[in-house]
């Protein structure tokens, strides 16, 4: 094979192709050439044939269809010499699969090689059959393969291949291996000393016992022996230890095989197995080396799974649980996830019912140890988005199952809501309410607890909900405590109302009505306040809010009737935890979920014993209580990949994803760089820093955002760089907008379509009040902005929240400005702050496939809907940096769509009242030789949008502000220079700000 120059030249040619079209041409030329040669078969030397067949495989790997030459590949199998034969075998197994008719032609040749005397040919043939053999192969070859496997004259090399080849044939037709005739042989195979043969044989055994464990019961003690041999490191050659661990894979496989036996009856075998498992459980430590860690934990998790399967003794179970607790505190994400994943599996599978007591003590101790609880909480805040809800649900179930008493449970759940509110589903707080309602002792406690949370400055909406409910029902139980009178409770709840979303408002209204009812003696002042609120909402556009406001208002005038209608909620019927039900519901959608299989099968081991083979051909339940537990959100169908891939993409421009995109070193560098074998997860974070230093342009380019009024009077200096803060907020949705020694203005924003809601958090940092507080919005023409009332005074150390409703009317890059001022002592402080309600906030990330992209791209032809511009003076970015940049402002790069690797195409949806959701497409053609220029094409169904988006992208790409703002059509030049929004180009230019935005 060495010296196949033609092949190397061809690969080089392909690599040198400038673009996809050139590559296709080169490939077509080559295919034509090969086709001609194959036609004139006569003159073709075996060498040439071999070379062409390799080329075909290469072309196939590039993704091109190779629809001829299969015959030639197959025919090489019968070539007399090794080199050609080898190529024939390999290429056939890559190009064809068991459903191809051509393969049948090869059966005879393959069989001849298997029964022939040439060991090398035997290996080739076994490999082909093992990889792509179908039913026909199974029927005609199984006996020959079995013979090779047990032959004492064959080298291990052949036998291990025979074992796996037989496994393949068995999968294709289980009848070809019969337990009656094969079980003894199989047991003998497990005495094998060669660990290669043993590894392959163990895989074969796993398959066989999954089909018929009774038939292979003689193998069980042998498996335990093998496990002992490995765990004690007896007779394990050095080459079979991996980072000091005797073949972790064989250990895992062996334990997997053992899990197919429902129980181990022989006491001495059982004892030996438990001794080995004990050794594994106790002997695994977390070490620095990633590979060693993974390998030892692979073994450990399998051991845990086996222990649980075997319903081990109490002490062992509690060891397992303690171990799981340890995993959660491991920093390494893989192990931590598996540990967490495993915990609820313990309950859901109801595997541990008989051991619950002991586990409970253990868990309670563990969960009470605040370090572990803290770990779970911390993990929640760093976990992957899609995982968080699942995790918080699991944590809630954990708490419920193992709560020492109910007040503890309330504590934990409130803490969970406080820490990870975004990911606490309604079911979780419903469950708290259910508990509290049903347990009178708990009511005053829960009420006082939520009352404490209400004192926190910013609390999560879910906390508002649960607090409102509990205080409405049981707040009166606290009436004598300081700060808990009905009026005070109303005051503190009503403060939160402006920050909550509309579904929470009806809940608050109900609470107000209940507070009013419980106020003893009747409080006229409170009644007045609450009636005012009801009055206000009588005209709400939300039907639910309106109805409640009207009804409560009328009811509360009726006095006694109010008492009846608003009587305390009755107890909930005790039923299954809605949380556990939720987990089960989710699982029902996951067809292959291990848990579901387990749930069906585990409570009834006896049944499985009695009837191992279900009728009507459904596959037998997998008898593996795998540790890999629940998978929420697995799409139920192998073909249903839409939903699977959707779970990956986050709505609303998830910035953690942006952050995850690592700028790559240059491509060629990667091609020749060694594969970094010592430290696999390459930390490329440093590249960003390097870039920052190289391109570090001073970032006080734009200091005009804050303008002191009355020059010298204003001596208050802002803390931090306002431009930087603004830039960061353009790319994320919460953070600090402005800060000086006295005040901090935070922003939290939510964007939905062309609507947005910004909450300004005005926090007084000092112990004296800030007075004459004024906030004016200078709106650009394209935005409708509505700021709620800002109080004149901010009390000492208080925080005031002012919601700001935003509506986008049409595309524009102008920026809204907040003119903010206040008085501290005698000095007047004023700042003009740009608000991060910028164009990209009204974009929704959207990734298109080529079938979606190109028809749209073609249908939008030419100006003014499609605009093209060569942009010069571009800040030099590598392609991946540019991808990150685009993704960060929600213009989604669609990888792989453009055939030319130097180009990027991207798509997004823009929302405004005038345009409605509008698809936008963009293409960036870069010049690898000159990164300072590129050609930008933007298209959408609206000419203004196309123009604005093009300019916006340009601003992000260019280093120097172009000063082209005046050229923007249909946008009046703002009269006051202050209101002139500084060009965002400056922002993008500031690497610090960009990094801040990305983080």
């Amino acid at each position, binding site marked *: 094979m060495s010296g196949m120059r033609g092949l190397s030249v061809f690969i080089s040619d392909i690599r040198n192709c400038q673009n996809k079209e050139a590559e296709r041409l080169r490939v077509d030329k080559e295919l034509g050439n090969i086709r001609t040669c194959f036609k004139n078969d006569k003159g073709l030397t075996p060498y040439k044939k071999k070379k062409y067949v390799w080329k075909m495989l290469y072309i196939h790997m590039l993704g091109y269809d190779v629809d001829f030459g299969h015959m030639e590949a197959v025919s090489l199998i019968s070539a007399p010499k090794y080199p050609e034969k080898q190529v024939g075998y390999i290429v056939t197994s890559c190009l064809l699969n068991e459903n191809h008719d051509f393969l049948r032609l090869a059966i005879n040749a393959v069989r001849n090689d298997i029964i022939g005397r040439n060991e090398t040919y035997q290996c080739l043939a076994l490999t082909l059959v093992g990889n792509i053999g179908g039913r026909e192969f199974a029927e005609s070859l199984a006996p020959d393969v079995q013979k090779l496997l047990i032959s004492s004259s064959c080298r291990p090399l052949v036998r291990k291949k025979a074992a796996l080849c037989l496994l393949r044939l068995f999968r294709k037709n289980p009848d070809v291996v019969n337990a009656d005739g094969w079980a003894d042989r199989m047991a003998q195979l497990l005495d094998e000393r060669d660990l290669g043969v043993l590894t392959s044989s163990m895989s074969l055994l796993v398959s066989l016992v999954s089909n018929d464990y009774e038939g292979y019961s003689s193998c069980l003690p042998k498996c335990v022996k093998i496990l002992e041999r490995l765990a004690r490191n007896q007779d394990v050659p050095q080459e079979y230890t991996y980072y000091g661990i005797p073949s972790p894979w064989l250990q895992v496989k062996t334990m997997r095989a053992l899990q197919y036996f429902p129980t181990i009856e022989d006491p001495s075998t059982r004892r030996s197995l438990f001794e080995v498992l004990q050794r594994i459980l106790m002997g695994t430590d977390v070490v620095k080396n990633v590979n060693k860690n993974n*390998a030892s934990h692979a073994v450990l998790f399998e051991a845990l799974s086996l222990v649980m399967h075997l319903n081990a003794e109490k002490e062992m179970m509690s060891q397992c649980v303690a171990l799981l607790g340890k995993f959660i505190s491991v920093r390494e994400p*893989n192990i931590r996830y598996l540990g967490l994943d495993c915990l609820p599996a313990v309950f859901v599978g109801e595997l541990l019912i008989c051991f619950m007591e002991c586990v409970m003590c253990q868990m309670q101790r563990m969960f009470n140890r605040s370090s572990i609880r803290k770990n779970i909480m911390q993990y929640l805040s760093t976990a992957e988005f899609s995982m968080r809800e699942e995790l918080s649900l699991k944590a809630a179930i954990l708490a419920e199952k193992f709560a020492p008493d109910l007040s503890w449970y309330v504590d934990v759940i409130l803490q969970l809501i406080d820490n990870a509110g975004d990911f606490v589903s309604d079911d979780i707080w419903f469950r708290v309410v259910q508990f509290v309602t049903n347990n009178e002792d708990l009511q005053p406690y829960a009420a006082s607890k939520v009352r404490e949370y209400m004192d926190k400055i910013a609390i999560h909406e879910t906390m508002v909900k649960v607090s409102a409910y509990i205080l409405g029902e049981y707040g009166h139980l606290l009436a004598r405590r300081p700060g808990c009178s009905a009026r005070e409770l109303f005051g503190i709840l009503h403060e939160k109302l402006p920050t909550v979303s509309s579904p929470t408002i009806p809940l608050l209204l109900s609470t107000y009505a209940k507070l009013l009812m419980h106020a003893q003696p009747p409080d006229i002042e409170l009644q007045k306040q609450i009636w005012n609120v009801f009055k206000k909402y009588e005209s709400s556009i939300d039907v639910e809010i309106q109805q409640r406001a009207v009804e409560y208002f009328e009811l509360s005038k009726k006095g006694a009737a109010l008492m009846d209608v608003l009587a305390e909620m009755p107890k909930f019927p005790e039923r299954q935890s809605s949380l556990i039900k939720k987990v089960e519901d989710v699982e029902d959608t996951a067809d292959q979920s291990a848990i579901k299989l387990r749930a069906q099968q585990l409570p009834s081991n006896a049944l499985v014993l009695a009837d191992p083979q279900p009728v009507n051909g459904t596959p037998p339940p*997998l008898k593996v209580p795998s540790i890999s537990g629940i998978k929420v959100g697995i799409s139920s169908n192998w073909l249903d990949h839409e939903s699977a891939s959707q779970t990956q993409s986050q709505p609303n421009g998830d910035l953690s994803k942006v952050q995850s995109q690592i700028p790559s070193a240059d*491509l060629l560098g990667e091609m020749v760089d060694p594969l970094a074998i010592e430290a696999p997860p390459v930390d490329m974070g440093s590249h960003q820093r390097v870039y920052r230093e190289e391109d570090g342009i001073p970032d006080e380019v734009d200091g005009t955002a804050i303008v002191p009024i009355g020059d010298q009077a204003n001596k208050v200096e802002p803390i931090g760089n306002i431009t930087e803060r603004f830039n960061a907020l353009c790319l994320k949705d919460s953070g600090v907008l402005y800060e000086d020694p006295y005040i901090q203005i935070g922003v939290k924003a939510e964007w939905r379509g062309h609507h947005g809601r910004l909450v300004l958090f005005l926090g007084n940092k000092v112990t004296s009040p800030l007075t004459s507080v004024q906030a004016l919005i200078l709106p650009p023409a394209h935005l409708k902005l509505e700021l709620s009332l800002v109080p004149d005074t901010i009390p000492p150390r208080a925080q005031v929240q002012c919601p700001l409703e935003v509506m986008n009317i049409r595309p524009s890059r102008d920026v809204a400005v907040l003119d903010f001022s206040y008085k501290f002592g005698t000095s007047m402080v004023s700042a003009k702050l740009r608000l991060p309600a910028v164009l990209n906030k009204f974009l929704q990330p959207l990734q298109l496939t080529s079938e979606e992209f190109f028809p749209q791209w073609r249908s939008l032809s030419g100006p003014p809907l499609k605009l093209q511009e060569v942009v010069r003076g571009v800040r030099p970015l590598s392609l991946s940096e540019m991808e990150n940049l685009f993704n960060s402002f929600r213009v989604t790069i669609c990888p792989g769509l453009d055939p030319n690797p130097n180009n990027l195409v991207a798509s997004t949806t823009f929302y405004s009242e005038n345009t409605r959701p509008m698809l936008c497409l963009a293409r960036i053609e870069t010049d690898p030789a000159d990164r300072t220029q590129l050609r930008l094409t933007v298209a959408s169904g609206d000419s203004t949008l196309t123009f604005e988006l093009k300019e916006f992208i340009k601003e992000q790409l260019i280093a120097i502000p172009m000063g082209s703002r005046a050229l923007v059509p249909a946008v009046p030049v703002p009269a006051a220079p202050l209101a002139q929004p500084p060009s965002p180009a400056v922002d993008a230019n500031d690497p610090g700000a960009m990094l801040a935005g990305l983080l």
Partner: protein
Amino acid sequence: SDISILSLQIRFILLQNRQGKTRLAKYYVPLEESEKHKVEYEVHRLVVNRDSKFTNFVEFRTHKVIYRRYAGLFFSLCVDITDNELAYLECIHLFVEILDHFFSNVCELDLVFNFHKVYLILDEFILAGELQETSKRAIIERMSELEKLE
């Protein structure tokens, strides 16, 4: 009646670079060509932008992909949902160590120009979707035996 769905371990192995170019693709289940292209495209999209602080396991359709990144190359294995994740994760590393040993300091270019050798090594390492040999030495020795035959 086909029990392969339950007991088949590795469904396919992919080796792709950051740009999504396939450097090695081996399927142990029969898939149509068009389906293979789709799988390769989807797996690339799934792994290429994942942060290293996340787990190396991603759900893929009704299975899961265990992947690992080495410089610009992604090694992905598609396995059954109940399979032992960490064992396959280290299986990838062992394969990379074998390649590294064979090519002495392997880089992507080695794999491009010697793709046929990579297939040969893989066939000594994994067969029928199962691990066949875990001794680096055994595989390297076997490879030199085979080279002598050519």
